[in-house]
């Protein structure tokens, strides 16, 4: 086993451990912290795939902003103070559905022969990604900014406390 494979299995174990923590743990704050572990492991995978730009974006937006937002809402909704079960009664059915999906996915992955062009795998420089984003993908990029703006305004309108409420 080479060093790259060892690093891959380490990162993959971290990602799966974090994911299991998110769905199985009984404390909501611990679940959020496990989510951070999983997201950071995915950033490590991006580095392993030679896409440093995505790794930086992942750490900044996901592990930084999104999880802080989730922790804020956990605090504001006081999910910790309520000593209720976090899982519903449909748990066995959910486990069955997820296990079936996993089985089908793995069977499909192992039976297909994937095309492979590994000889040309190389690092994608930041300026090439920026160039593609602002030239070939300029319209989707602008629409994405519009989506962000609308979501921002919408979130403020929805969450705002109105007069006389």
């Amino acid at each position, binding site marked *: 086993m080479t060093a790259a494979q060892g690093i891959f299995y380490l990162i993959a174990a971290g990602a799966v451990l974090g994911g299991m923590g998110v769905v199985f743990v009984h404390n909501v704050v611990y679940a959020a912290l496990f989510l951070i572990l999983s997201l950071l492991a995915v950033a490590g995978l991006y580095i392993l795939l030679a896409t440093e730009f995505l790794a930086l974006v992942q750490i900044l937006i996901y592990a930084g902003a999104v999880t802080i937002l989730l922790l804020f809402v956990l605090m504001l909704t006081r999910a910790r103070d309520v000593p209720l079960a976090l899982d519903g009664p449909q748990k066995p059915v959910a486990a069955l559905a997820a296990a079936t999906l996993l089985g089908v996915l793995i069977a499909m992955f192992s039976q297909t022969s994937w095309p*492979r*062009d590994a000889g040309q795998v190389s690092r994608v420089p930041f300026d090439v990604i920026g160039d593609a984003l602002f030239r070939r993908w300029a319209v989707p990029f602008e629409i994405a900014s519009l989506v962000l703006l609308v979501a921002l305004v919408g979130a403020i309108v*929805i969450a705002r406390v109105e007069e006389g409420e």
Partner: protein
Amino acid sequence: MEAAAEQIPLEHFLVLSGILFSLGVYGVLARRNAVLILMSVELMLNAVSINMVAFAVYTAPSSFVGIIFAVFIITVAAAEVGLALGIILRIYRNRATANVDEVDQLKW
């Protein structure tokens, strides 16, 4: 830098993303707190991103469409989290609960 990915088969990335996606599916179906459901959705989005990037790096390294797609997935996920958390806060203020099975006014 040559990517370390050459020593790792593409299937390993796919299986990892499949495991993460299944965990997310389980979380969405089994949890009843809306914030925890949202976390599981984040897991699923991440699994899809891994898939996109792995396919981009392994099969079409010159066009890297998958990397651009991953950027857009992260953008839309950020917008989705902001909006969903606003809705959850609103529900909590009106109904004093963040559990999805207690918000059933539309059920009859």
